[in-house]
C-alpha cells in the first residue's frame, strides 16, 4: 500500500463515517465529528506506504483532535460578538425601525425599496463575514417586507439566502479570502474592489431578478407584519451604534500607532454597549446573550468540528490528496469546473474549503501568471453560494427557518435560486479567467 492508497482509504473511511452518522440521524456536526474520529483511527491503523513514518502515540492523537477544535476559535469569537451586537440591535427595535422607515418612505417606489433592503441585508454579513448572521438578524424582517411586496415564498427564501451569501462575500470581512490568503502567506490587501464588485452585482441581480417585478408595496400590510417600534426611535439613535462601530474600525486604520488595538470581538461588544445605552427601552442583556449563543450553537459547532476534521485530514495526507487532485487538473478544466467544485465543497466542509483548496489554487494561479487576488476574490464569492447545499446547508437552513418556509427545499427554494446562482458563478468565473486583465483595470 502506498501513501496515496493510505490517504485515499482514510478519505473513504471519513466519507463512510459521515454517511453512517447521517443515516443514524445524527446532526451534521456530530456526523462530522464521527467522521473525524474515524479518520484518525483509520490513519493510525492503516499501513502508510513504503517510506518510514513517525509513530503517533495515543496522547498525541488526542492532542490533534483538541488542537484542531481551536483552529477557528478567533472566527467563532467574531461570530458570537457580531451576532450579539446585531441581536441586541434587533431586540431594541433598531432593525424594525429602519425597515418600517424604508416601507413608509419608499413603499410606492419598488426599486428604491429593494435597493435599501439589499443594503440592510448586506451590512451584517459584510462586517461579520457570516451569511448566517445576516439571516438570523435581519432575515425575517426583510422577509416580511418582501411578503408585503407580493414576492412568492420560493422567491422570498431564495432572495434572503442569496443576499445573505453575497453579504458574507462582501468586503471588508470575507472569511474565505482571509483564511486562504493567510494560508498562502499573502496579505489580505487589495480584495475590497473585486469582492465588492462581484458581491454587490450579485446581490443587485438577485434582488431585481427575484423581486424586481410586482405591484408597489402594500404599506399597511407590510407595517402590520412588522414588529412595533418602541417609542423614542429616530435616525440619530438608529445610526449611533453603527457610527460607534465604524468609528472604532476606522480609528484603528486612521491612527494605527496611537489608537489601542481592540480587536473585532471587543469592537462588537463596545458597539453592543452603545445599543444598550441608546435603546429607548431597557434591554434584557442576559436573555439576548443566551439567545445569541443558542442560535449560533450549530454554526460554531460546525466551525469547531471542521477544525478537527481538517487537522485529521492534514495529519493523514487526505488534505494533500484532495489539494493535489485539484491543482493537477489542467487549467482549462479548472476554469470549467471550479464553479461547481467550490460551492459543492463549501456545502460539505464550510469555511474549511478555503485553506483546503484556496491555498494550493492561489499557488497554482500565481505560477500560471493569473492574478491571485482577483482569482481568490472570485472563488470567495462562489464559495458562499454552496451554503444552501447539503450536508451542512447552514445559511439555507437558517433562511428556511427564519421565514417559516414550508415549501420543498430543493424543488422550491434551491431551484428558484439556481438562475441567480448561475449568473453569479458565471460572472465570478469570468473574473477568474480574466483576472490579470481585471486586476489592471480595478487594481488587485
Amino acid at each position, binding site marked *: 500500500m*502506498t*501513501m*496515496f492508497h*493510505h*490517504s485515499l482509504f482514510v478519505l473513504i473511511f471519513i466519507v463512510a463515517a459521515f454517511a453512517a452518522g447521517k443515516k443514524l440521524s445524527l446532526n451534521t456536526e456530530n456526523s462530522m465529528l464521527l467522521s473525524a474520529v474515524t479518520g484518525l483511527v483509520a*490513519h493510525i491503523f492503516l499501513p*502508510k*506506504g513504503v*517510506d*518510514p*513514518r*513517525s509513530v*503517533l502515540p495515543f496522547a*498525541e492523537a*488526542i*492532542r490533534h*483532535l*483538541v*488542537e*484542531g477544535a*481551536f*483552529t477557528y*476559535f*478567533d472566527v467563532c469569537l467574531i461570530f458570537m460578538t457580531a451576532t450579539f451586537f446585531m441581536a441586541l440591535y434587533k431586540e431594541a427595535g433598531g432593525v424594525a425601525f429602519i425597515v418600517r422607515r424604508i416601507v413608509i418612505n419608499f413603499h410606492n417606489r419598488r426599486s428604491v425599496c429593494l435597493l435599501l433592503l439589499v443594503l440592510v441585508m448586506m451590512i451584517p454579513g459584510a462586517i461579520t463575514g457570516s451569511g448566517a448572521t445576516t439571516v438570523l438578524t435581519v432575515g425575517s424582517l426583510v422577509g416580511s417586507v418582501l411578503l408585503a411586496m407580493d414576492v412568492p415564498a420560493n422567491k422570498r427564501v431564495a432572495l434572503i439566502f442569496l443576499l445573505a451569501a453575497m453579504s458574507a462575500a462582501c468586503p*471588508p470581512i470575507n472569511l474565505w479570502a*482571509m483564511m486562504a*490568503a*493567510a*494560508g498562502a*502567506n*499573502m*496579505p*489580505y*490587501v487589495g480584495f475590497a474592489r473585486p469582492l465588492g464588485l462581484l458581491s454587490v452585482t450579485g446581490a443587485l441581480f438577485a434582488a431585481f431578478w427575484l423581486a424586481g417585478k410586482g405591484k408597489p408595496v402594500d404599506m399597511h400590510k407590510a407595517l402590520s407584519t412588522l414588529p412595533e417600534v418602541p417609542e423614542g426611535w429616530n435616525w440619530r439613535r438608529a445610526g449611533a451604534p453603527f457610527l460607534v462601530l465604524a468609528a472604532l474600525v476606522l480609528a*484603528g486604520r486612521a491612527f*494605527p*500607532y496611537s489608537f489601542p*488595538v481592540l*480587536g*473585532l470581538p471587543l*469592537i462588537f461588544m463596545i458597539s453592543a454597549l452603545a445599543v444598550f445605552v441608546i435603546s429607548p427601552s431597557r434591554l434584557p442583556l442576559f436573555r439576548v446573550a443566551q439567545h445569541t449563543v443558542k442560535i449560533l450553537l450549530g454554526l460554531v459547532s460546525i466551525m469547531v468540528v471542521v*477544525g478537527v476534521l481538517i*487537522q*485529521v485530514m*492534514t*495529519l493523514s*495526507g487526505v*488534505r*494533500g*490528496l484532495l*489539494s*493535489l487532485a485539484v*491543482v*493537477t487538473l489542467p487549467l482549462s478544466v479548472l476554469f470549467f469546473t471550479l464553479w461547481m467544485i467550490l460551492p459543492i465543497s463549501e456545502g460539505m466542509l464550510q469555511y474549511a474549503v478555503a*485553506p483546503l483548496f484556496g491555498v*494550493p489554487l492561489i*499557488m*497554482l494561479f*500565481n*505560477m500560471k501568471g493569473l492574478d491571485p487576488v482577483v482569482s481568490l476574490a472570485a472563488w470567495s464569492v462562489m464559495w458562499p453560494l454552496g451554503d444552501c447545499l447539503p450536508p451542512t446547508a447552514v445559511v439555507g437552513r437558517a433562511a428556511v427557518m427564519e421565514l417559516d418556509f414550508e415549501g420543498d427545499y430543493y424543488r422550491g427554494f434551491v431551484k428558484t435560486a439556481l438562475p441567480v446562482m448561475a449568473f453569479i458563478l458565471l460572472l465570478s468565473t469570468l473574473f477568474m479567467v480574466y483576472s490579470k486583465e481585471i486586476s489592471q483595470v480595478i487594481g488587485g
Partner: protein
Amino acid sequence: MNIRTAKLIILLFAGSCAAIAGSLFKEHMEYKEAVVASPFLSEVRKLSDYSDAVKGSVNDANVYIFNGPTPGGTVVLLGGTHPEEPVANLSAQIFTENVHPVQGRVIVINRINTSASMATRMGEAYPRFYHISTPWGVKKWRYGDRLATPLHSWPDPEVYVHYPSGQNLAYMDVRNANRTWPGRHDGLLCERTNYALMELIRKEKADIVMDFHEAELEYAVENTIVVHEKGQSVAAMASMMLTSQTFDVPIGMEFSPKALHGLSHREVGDHSDAVSYLVEVAEPMLDRIRGITDEELLMSGKDRFVMKAGEYKLLYSPIDESGWPVEKRTARHVATLMTILQVNNMLAPEKTIILEGIPDYREITENGLGAFFQNPDEAPQERVFYD
C-alpha cells in the same frame, strides 16, 4: 441511559481529552532548549539589554556574542523567525555551539520569536518537537508556528498597518516577526521584538544581518538569497560560487522588493548601516499538498505528493526520492553565510570577518547535524544556556 447520563459521559470524555491535550500543550510551552555555547563565547546578553521594549516578554531572547581577537566586521545571525522552519534556528545554533571567531564579531540569536515556537500551527497537524541523534544521545527542539501565539499577542488589529510605511497587511501578520521590521517600541509583541533587534543591530554597529528561513516548494521565492540592494554584488558572487562549486541544486539571488514592507531584507537595510540578507531553502513540510504530516517528513523532507506535484511542473524547486533532508537544508544555510562572509571579506577588507570551527557543506551532509551539537550534561555549566 437517560440524556443526562449521556451528557455527563460526553462531558467527562471531552474533559479527559482536554486534560491530555492540555498537559501536552503545557509541556511544549515550557520545554527549554539547551544550548552549549562555543568556548569562544565572549558574553551572553538579553535582547532587553538593547531596548526595554521586550523586557519581561517571552521574546526577550538570549544574545550570544563572540568577539574575535582582531577587530573586523560584525555579523548578526537571526534564527527562529518562523519556528515552523526548523533549519533557521538549527543553522543559527550551529554557529552558537561551534564558532571560533578569528577576526571580527559574530552575534547570534537562535530564536527571535520564541513565542511562535511555544505552540504549533492549528489545523496543520504539526508535531510538537523534533529530534536529532547525536553521538551522546538525542537532542530535542520545539517545533512551532509561523506566528507568535495569540496567548502572548492578542487581539490582532482588524487590519495590520505596518510601521512606518503605513502599508496594509493581513491582520495576523502583526504576529509575524518577518512582517514587523523595523518594529515599534510601543507596538505589539513582534513589533517590539523587532524594534529591540533593530536597536541591537544599530548599537552593535552590525555590518551584515542574516535571517534564515525555509519555504514551501510551491512558493516562488525558493532556494535563494534575498538581498537589500546594498549587498547585491556580494550576494550575486556568493550565489555563483555556491551554485558552481558546492550545491547540487542552484541557489539564486533576488533583490528585496522596495515596495514590500516589514521584511528583514528590506527594513534592516533601510533603517541601519547593515546589509541585510535572507536565505530560503526548500521545506516540503510547508507545502499544503503534502501527504502524511509527521516528524519524519519534517526531517527527511521526503514526500510523494509533493514529488507528484513536481511531475506536473507545479513547483519552484526540484524534489526526488532523496527529498530535502534537514542536514542538507541546514548545510546550505551555513555554507551560504560562510560564502557571503568570504566574498564580503574580499570586497570590504576593512570589515573582515573570519570564522573557524564551522562545519562545511560536505561535513554536515556526510556526518549529520548531531555531530555538531554538544552534550549539555557534560559541558561546563557556565557555557550552558536555555532558549
